[in-house]
């Protein structure tokens, strides 16, 4: 569980805060997608949940950020990292660079936790099945394509089974099949009760796989709600975001009052359009 209250943060030597008075809660096992323009504060928020803000980036922080009862700005990075795993945008920033095989790379974090060999092998098997990298275990991580490498980076974090996983554009380097695998993994994590916070530009995927969507603009939280509610908001364009393409065409075809929510996924849109046809064919 993540509880954030009036969180404000300035990077060193900056006059404008990167995060302004953020307040929201993410329940354990919930999956929240974060959207907004580049520069809106999405990555900074990820770093704050992980504790890299302020412990690594320094700067000035005020307000509270609790993860599983730990106040992150007051705790050490070591303490926070036992509860939160961060998946970076670029897998090259994640992989240790010192391991010759994918299997050793995934094992690296587990070894550091002092996990017994048997259990380690179990974890590696579980995570590699989940992310579709079982056939890559004996490959060199740096011989992989960008997408494969990112799946290995995610696997190395998932293997440690943190309570909270923060992902900063985890699929930006991935092909469509790889993107689907990552979102399938996010579903699996949710079923296991792991909290996920995902920054992504691929809104169609977020709408389908997240419980709630948060919108950041200029460091402020503009909205956080169910996808069908968030994407029905009239101010989206001002915040530099837009609804999924399904929602956009639905709104244009069935121009009606959408305050009760709009369809945001393929399945819902098909159902709502069919219902609309029935009401308008008579």
């Amino acid at each position, binding site marked *: 569980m993540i509880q954030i209250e009036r969180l404000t943060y300035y990077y060193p030597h900056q006059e404008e805060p990167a995060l302004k008075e953020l307040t929201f809660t993410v329940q354990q096992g919930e999956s929240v997608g974060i959207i*907004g*323009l*580049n*520069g809106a504060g999405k990555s900074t928020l990820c770093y704050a949940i992980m504790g890299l803000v302020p412990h690594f980036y320094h700067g000035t922080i005020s307000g509270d950020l609790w993860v599983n009862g730990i106040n992150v700005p007051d705790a050490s990075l070591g303490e926070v990292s036992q509860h939160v795993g961060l998946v970076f*945008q*670029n897998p090259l920033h994640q992989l240790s660079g010192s391991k010759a095989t994918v299997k050793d790379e995934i094992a690296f974090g587990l070894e550091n936790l002092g996990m017994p060999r048997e259990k380690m092998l179990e974890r590696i098997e579980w995570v590699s099945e989940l992310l579709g990298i079982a056939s890559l275990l004996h490959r060199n991580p740096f011989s992989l*394509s*960008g*997408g*494969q490498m990112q799946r290995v980076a995610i696997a190395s974090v998932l293997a440690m089974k943190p309570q909270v996983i923060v992902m900063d*554009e985890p699929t*930006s*380097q*991935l*092909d*469509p*099949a*790889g*993107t*689907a695998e990552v979102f399938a993994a996010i579903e699996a994590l949710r079923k296991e009760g792991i909290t996920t916070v995902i920054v992504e*530009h*691929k809104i*169609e995927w977020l709408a389908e796989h997240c419980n709630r969507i948060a919108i950041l603009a200029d460091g402020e939280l503009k909205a956080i709600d169910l996808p069908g509610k968030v994407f029905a908001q009239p101010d989206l364009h001002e915040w*530099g*975001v*837009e609804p*999924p*393409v*399904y929602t*956009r*065409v639905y709104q*244009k*075809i069935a121009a009606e009052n959408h305050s009760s929510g709009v369809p945001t996924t*393929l399945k819902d*849109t*098909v159902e709502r*359009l*069919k219902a609309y*046809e029935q009401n*308008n*064919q008579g």
Partner: protein
Amino acid sequence: MSKTIKVDEVWFSYSPGQPVLRGVTITFTPGVTAIIGENGAGKTTLMKLLNGLLTPSKGSVLVGELDTREHLTSQLAKYVGIVFQNPDDQIFKSKVIDEVMFGPLNIGMSLEEAHRRAKAAMAELQITGIEEENPYDLSYPVRKRIAIASILAMNTEVVIFDEPTIGQDIAGVRLLGKIVTKLGAEGKTVISIVHDMNFAGQFFQRIISMAEGQVVADGKPEEVFRDWGGLKRAHVSPPSLVQLADALELKQTPLTEEQFIKYYCQERLPKRNR
């Protein structure tokens, strides 16, 4: 003269006995072409063959009349500009303006022209004002735009992008779509590796689908994105609007929102039609 690239029966292997490309034949002509397919299908390798960074193990690549086996990449760079997937593989100057002027100067433009073209390209990418900054002090999406500007500034007849939309927000994706369309309208040959099928469907006139080192489909987006067998082989799903059209059993294939609304109203709401 060098707007056409002919890839003829090209095979390529990084290590013996493991071909990454297996008999690829494509003629790239003016207009905008997207190459789609899963990671590892050979798309980036193909791209590197188009300006001689790699040369075929078998078969040939002709840039206009120039055989890439007989010409240096530095000679071909005048005709073919490539924007790599990762801007950090490309950027090495400590000032943005020097970075964007590097390519133009390298292919023999005068200092004045290089500067003019660099400024114009930066304006097009909406990154004016950062000329004196160090690229590595800037964010990834901005570095990506710098890398694109540095290639556009060279004004080559062929422009190749490897996943230009990575890390770009909605505004950035729209801008890149506009740039790709404009280059195509100017008569340039634009080739882009694309993983975002919504982007591919909306902005590209020709789609080439690759799987396991071979071309599995080559045609208009309306055809390629409705060929489920071919898409399955390439492990890609069609654009969202095509999926929606399929689920609603529309006969026409919409690639833009306007097309979807038009086709949907024609086929499913005939009485509402004016």
